[in-house]
């Protein structure tokens, strides 16, 4: 079995989709959470000077989606055919687009007025539009009572859970107009491996 080391900070953030897929796969790994003071020492060792990074028997993979997809493949949870893999990838990309829009106002906008404006636009306009697409795409997979792709959990679900955690924290009833998505969140949370991880993972601000 390869050795896996996941480097990130004390938070869910960009590392959590990979952690969820590692949990679903039951793969043991070193969950390294760096203090900010340690970062200057580690940064030059990382392929693009960023975290998260997954080290697999000494090979370093950066970029959160690339990492999550790799980990998903390790347990056959990245889609079973080319087309399923493309579907899982496209769903994950859609969720990451939403996560990036949130990150834009949470982390990258300093002006308070602009921050509030961007947040309002996100919750009032952008997010509802895309949740509508996501609900429809879920339903397109056999009625939406299962998962986004094929008949099993993929990295699409990992990214969706991270997104829904963040949007529900802000607006608890945000998924009520989207019953299939709301039901899927519960199915992901009780998925073997993920359920245990959610119960024991550190509680962190991000």
């Amino acid at each position, binding site marked *: 079995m390869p050795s896996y080391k996941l480097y990130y900070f004390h938070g869910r953030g960009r590392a959590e989709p990979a952690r969820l897929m590692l949990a679903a796969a039951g793969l043991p790994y070193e969950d390294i959470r760096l203090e900010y003071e340690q970062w200057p020492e580690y940064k030059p060792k990382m392929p693009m000077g960023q975290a998260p990074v997954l080290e697999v028997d000494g*090979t370093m*993979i950066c970029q959160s989606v*690339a*990492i999550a997809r790799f980990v998903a493949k390790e347990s056959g949870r990245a889609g079973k055919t080319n087309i399923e*893999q493309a579907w899982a*990838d496209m769903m994950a990309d859609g969720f990451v687009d939403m996560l990036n829009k949130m990150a834009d106002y949470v982390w990258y906008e300093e002006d308070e007025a602009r921050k509030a404006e961007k947040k309002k636009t996100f919750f009032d306009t952008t997010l509802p*539009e895309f949740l509508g697409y996501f609900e429809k795409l879920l339903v397109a997979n056999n009625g939406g009572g299962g998962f986004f792709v094929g008949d099993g959990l993929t990295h699409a679900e990992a990214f969706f859970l991270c997104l829904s955690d963040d949007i529900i924290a802000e607006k608890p009833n945000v998924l009520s107009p989207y019953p299939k998505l709301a039901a899927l969140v519960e199915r992901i949370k009780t998925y073997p491996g993920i359920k245990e991880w959610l119960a024991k993972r550190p509680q962190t601000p991000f």
Partner: protein
Amino acid sequence: MPDYKLTYFNGKGTAELVRLVFAAGGIVYEDVRLQQDQWPELKPKTPMGQVPILEVEGTMLCQSNSIARYVAKLAGLAGKTPLDQARVDMIMDGMEDLGKKGHGVYWEKDEEKKAEKKKDYEETFLPQFYTCMNKLVGDSGHFVGNELTLADITFFNMTTLVGNYMKLPNVDEFSGLKKVMDHVTSNPGIAKWLKERPETPF
């Protein structure tokens, strides 16, 4: 009728990577270019209200990088092992970051802020990025393994697109990246496409 139908606007934009991969793989596809007035009718039929879309195997795929990866697999350009594929994916994502940041500068409305951001992007960010990416090129002159992959093609495409409105570092000063660019532009399928592709405003 080809098995693959790519739909986008009449430009390079986020579809060009897919077109380059089709070209490198020598795979025939329908290259549909929408007029602006055709878009409102198509939009609700697309998975996420966006283009490019790829119609294939009776379904509609969206998200340009996911489409590119799908086509790369058909063309044998996605990386040979899961770890190689992850390295290809990480290079792709890194290039996406470069493009997004450049985009952010381009679309900055405040003229003073824009000038500041552009200076930082061209004089600090890009040189650092090129230095970092140069280290990731193997002795073969490819980002991953010994053959052309989607990683090499993405580096070529994204830098070419960003170079239309930003001053790029001189790739001749980065021996690894220069080799990557040469490998991409000398690929027969890509070379042919670069000669034949339509001239478009974006």
